[in-house]
């Protein structure tokens, strides 16, 4: 909330701190090194990521994603350290994603983290993935106390900070927005490279026709599964042309894949902006921060910008380096809690698929 800023419990460090973060809760494996300086500033030293890309029409399955992470983990960690020119001996703590995410990929990453921790005798810090996104967003954009819209393949939440906790104001009642986009991309056979959502965004630019799709906001919550079914339904419509071309010159009343992408984006992003606006009005905040993979969508950022402007507020967004899952955000959030005296003992260094944003005690904020 705007106004008086209370004193932060996080003291400036007595010496520079270095942390490595490992992330692999979904189809990306990422490693990053962050440094916190004595004056309280931070620097991103390296941020390496590799994405497991499946052929069009297929999603990533837990088993193969975990396999991908196991194959790439060592190379990425080595690249990441080499880029900075430090060795594992120099870092203060090893941060890894504790959850939420897909079970098998999380386990592979936790295993790597545990092994490194034993090998180099470094403390482990388990990090909540969502908190990682939020803290990284605040660090990169400089937003003080924004309403956070966290949109990705596995999460859709509107979050606001209150009393050392990120409280969830609104969230999806069924599937996440990114999941809805990914699955729709599979229906119309769009490529998964670099990301299905990115290709939908490009396709949507060619769309002209806004088709009626359910608009399912419920208070501050949203629902996407019915929308997905409804857009999928249009692909069985007799006006649908999978190649996007009219069959003959008189074939005017047609629906193209581009139109579907356009309608889908316009509808679901409008819903997200609406619930974000509702949360802003409710708590009286003027800042919005968009984090998560879907947050790199320019149309969503644009719509959010218009809304913020109408309210006299400001939107903070980032590019794909920090929006999409990365190791650096885990390192940053992990180091914040490490500096507050938190670490995860080896026996408790588990991971969990279900780990809500509001379960974490945000000890480093006032």
């Amino acid at each position, binding site marked *: *909330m*705007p*106004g*008086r800023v209370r004193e932060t419990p996080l003291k400036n460090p007595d010496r520079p701190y270095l942390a490595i973060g490992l992330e692999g809760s979904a189809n990306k494996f990422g490693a990053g090194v962050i440094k916190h300086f004595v004056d309280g500033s931070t620097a991103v030293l390296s941020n390496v990521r590799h994405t497991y890309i499946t052929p069009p029409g297929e999603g990533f399955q837990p088993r193969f994603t975990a396999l991908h992470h196991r194959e790439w983990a060592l190379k990425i960690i080595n690249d990441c350290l080499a880029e900075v020119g430090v060795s594992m001996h120099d870092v203060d703590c090893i941060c890894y994603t504790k959850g*939420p995410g897909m079970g098998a990929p999380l386990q592979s990453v936790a295993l790597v983290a545990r092994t490194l921790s034993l090998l180099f005798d470094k403390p482990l810090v388990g990090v909540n993935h969502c908190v990682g996104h939020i803290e990284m967003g605040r660090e990169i954009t400089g937003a003080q106390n924004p309403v956070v819209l966290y949109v990705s393949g596995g*999460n859709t939440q509107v979050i*606001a900070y*209150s*009393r050392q906790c990120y*409280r*969830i*104001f609104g*969230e*999806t*009642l069924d599937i*996440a927005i990114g999941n809805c986009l990914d699955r729709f991309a599979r229906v119309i056979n769009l490529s998964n490279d670099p990301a299905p959502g990115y290709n939908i965004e490009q396709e949507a630019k060619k769309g002209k026709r*806004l088709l009626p799709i359910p*608009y399912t*906001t*419920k*208070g*501050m*919550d949203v629902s996407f599964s019915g929308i997905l079914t409804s857009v999928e339904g249009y692909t069985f419509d007799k006006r649908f042309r999978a190649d996007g071309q009219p069959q003959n010159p008189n074939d005017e009343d047609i629906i193209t894949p581009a139109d579907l992408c356009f309608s889908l984006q*316009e*509808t679901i*992003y*409008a819903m997200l*902006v*609406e619930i974000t*606006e*509702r949360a*802003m*009005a*409710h*708590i*009286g905040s003027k800042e919005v921060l968009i984090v998560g993979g879907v947050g790199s969508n320019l149309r969503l950022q*644009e*719509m*959010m910008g*218009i*809304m913020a*402007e*109408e*309210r006299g507020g400001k939107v903070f967004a980032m590019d794909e380096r920090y929006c999409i899952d990365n190791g650096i955000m885990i390192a940053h959030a992990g180091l914040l809690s490490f500096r507050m005296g938190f670490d995860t003992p080896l026996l408790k260094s588990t991971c*969990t*698929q*279900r*780990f*809500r944003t509001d*379960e974490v005690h945000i000890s480093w904020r006032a």
Partner: protein
Amino acid sequence: MTSPSLTLISTSTLISQGAEAKVYKAHLTADPSDAPILLKHRFRKGYRHPTLDGSITRTRVAGEARALLKCLRSGVNVPGVRMVDASEGILGIEWIDGQSVRKLLPGGAGEDDEEQEEDDQIDLLQEYDISVEILMQLIGQEIAKMHLADVIHGDLTTSNMMLRHPSTFKSCHATLRTELVLIDFGLSYHSSLVEDKAVDLYVLERAFTSTHPDAEPLFASAMQAYEQRMGKEWAAIGRRLDDVRLRGRKRSMVG
């Protein structure tokens, strides 16, 4: 040519900008001693596609007016309807002189100045001559009345409830000098389903816990009043509410 309702807006004073509408204080007649009305203008949202925006605005304004009328007929305390212009997105309702319930509860006024805020709260409670317990009961009762009329509010929060100011309200109650009014029916609809009523309560519960972190036990006393008023209908709704609480993603499934 601008429509008469837009002309009316141009002559009225902007009070605030809510979640989706601008709120104005206006006078329908030239006589300033006449009771003012509240105009709620769902202005065009630049971020939404014009077609989508138009249809959403029209349905919401018409739906809100319909729900208010239904509540009024069933004796639920809501503001009276004064004018409707669905195509412009304007709804005129009774002006309620009073205070939002959110301001009367701990944590409601924001977190800038906690001590100051707590004083204000107590002052307000005294001004309205009401205790937090009674306030919770009123909330429970009013929602129950609304649900018995098969109206689902859709956005129950403490910001969407008001207390009438004792100085301008004539109470027919012996000890109570104010009245709780439910406002903002922008997301409301008609339903007799147990599911919808339970979700409505769940929305309120979430709003309570996210706005008033220490007021969680208070919600329980509001629910108690609700339960009494609903009578035999409560059993099914209560059971469904427990189910609804388990929804949402990534909850730990222990126990």
